[in-house]
């Protein structure tokens, strides 16, 4: 790293970005904060309620349930997508015609609008017209994602794995491609096992991209809205009502601005906090292994 020159005029270069993002972020956020401490009965009459909405929220079972479901969903998909992504990245060809084929077909799900992803899986999973639903039904499985909560969960998880594992694969693959061939030759001379090659050469090299992959996947899965909204609409019952879905129901469906605003703030803070924890833990591990692994 070269030492950077101190130059306060650099602020002028950052200013346009700062203004646009501030316009899109700070004003709406202030609106939310404003609503979260007030109550309204319509006609733009607001009364100050202080922390009441937050107290209600902390004790609300509906919020606890949505939060737990959200945490469980993010946890499950991280546990599946990260190891699976690493495995596929390790097995991908390094050169030849297979590379563009893999890259293009794997990037494809990432560029499909999220509600179309929902539509694809809605069609694919239906028992009457879908390939997956029909095959499972004819094999004798009792599968119907519109009625059975477990089937709905499984459908959503498989859908997310289908949609996003490629991101982990592409990132890990890029990390693996940056390893010089000499490292592998050295490992071969030392008689290193397949596992120690992975543990001491490939994993450390993937660490940085893996951190980004996990952070992005965590943030995005924690905010997931469109796909479950299209496929299950939060049902059957409330079994797939994740935080975003619950929030939109509360804010736009019932127009309970105060509670919705309080929930928004808590939601946002939880994401910030968890990301910060992830980030700190992961980068500490990164520093330790790069210091100790030399």
């Amino acid at each position, binding site marked *: 790293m070269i030492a950077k020159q101190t130059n306060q005029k*650099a602020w002028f270069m950052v200013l*346009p970005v*700062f203004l646009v993002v501030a316009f899109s972020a700070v004003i*709406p956020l202030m609106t939310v904060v404003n609503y979260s401490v007030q109550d309204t009965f319509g006609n733009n009459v607001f009364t100050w309620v202080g922390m009441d909405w937050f107290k209600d929220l902390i004790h609300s079972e509906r919020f606890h349930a949505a939060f737990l479901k959200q945490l469980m969903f993010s946890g499950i998909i991280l546990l599946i997508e990260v190891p699976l992504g690493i495995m596929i990245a390790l097995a991908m060809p390094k050169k030849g015609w297979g590379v563009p084929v893999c890259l293009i077909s794997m990037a494809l799900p990432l560029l*499909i609008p999220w509600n179309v992803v929902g539509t694809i899986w809605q069609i694919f999973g239906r028992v009457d*017209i879908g390939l997956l639903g029909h095959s499972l039904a004819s094999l004798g499985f009792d599968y119907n994602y519109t009625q059975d909560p477990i089937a709905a969960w499984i459908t959503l998880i498989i859908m997310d794995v289908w949609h996003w594992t490629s991101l982990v694969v*592409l990132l890990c693959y890029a990390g693996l491609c*940056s390893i010089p061939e000499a490292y592998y030759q050295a490992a071969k001379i030392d008689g290193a096992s397949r596992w120690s090659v992975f543990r001491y050469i490939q994993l450390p090299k993937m660490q940085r991209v893996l951190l980004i992959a996990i952070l992005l996947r965590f943030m995005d899965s924690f905010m997931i809205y469109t796909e479950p909204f299209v496929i299950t609409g939060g049902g059957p019952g409330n079994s797939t009502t994740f935080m975003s879905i619950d929030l939109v129901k509360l804010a736009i469906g019932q127009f309970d601005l105060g509670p919705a605003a309080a929930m928004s703030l808590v939601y946002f803070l939880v994401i910030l906090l968890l990301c910060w924890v992830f980030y700190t833990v992961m980068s500490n591990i990164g520093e330790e292994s790069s210091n100790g692994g030399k």
Partner: protein
Amino acid sequence: MRLKWLIPAIYIIFLLLPIYWLVNMSLKTNEEILSVFTLWPRDLTFANYMVIFTDASWYSGYINSMIYVSINVVISVTFALPAAYAFSRYSFVGDKHLFFWLLTNRMAPPAVFALPFFQLYSSIGLFDTHIAVAIAHCLFNLPLAVWILEGFMSGIPKEIDETAFVDGYSWPRFFIKIFIPNIASGIGVTAFFCFMFSWVELLLARTLTAVNAKPISAIMTRTVSASGLDWGVLAAAGVLTILPGALVIYFVRNHIAKGFALGRV
């Protein structure tokens, strides 16, 4: 180890199966979809696609989406270029805090912002315009663009800047004539990701539009809830939303690998 190619192969088949099914459905008539279960269309029909190409309420959705995505990509890249340069070359008061604050906006759940955005853009008279959606998408695309571009710019040696200044280049001339050509592939990758996240986003785009700027993805959800029956047309519309993405991937496939290699997304 000889069977190593099987893993990506199985994965790609898993990825392509639902897409195959969508294409299959889009080429069938509704009677065939609902009455019999066939792995490929028995009476091949393009009627579903004709519906979309001839009905203005369908194809205008594609045009709207394209317009606001393009505006967003242009804004994101042009605004992010100088900012990323500042972050990669200079240190100034509050730079680290500013960078982290920008990134936190990438983490903000759109559901949190949907309602305030609606009120904000209504009050300044931008509701239901392309520019409103484009600016709203800057919330997550601008930080991302700054992040990616900063990565690319930090890879360019500082000596290039210094030599140019010694040669008497002014900053704007140096930036356009020398610096931008050097990070062309970085700009390509940035544009790709801005395109991607703006193209796939639905919640904000749907909240901020009613008629004139309604994106194709919102038109599709309307059809689902209203009739819920015309599966063939729905599938055809889905296939058509995949195509622009597929084209973009094809054109930037070599740049993507490079962009990922720098460890930025």
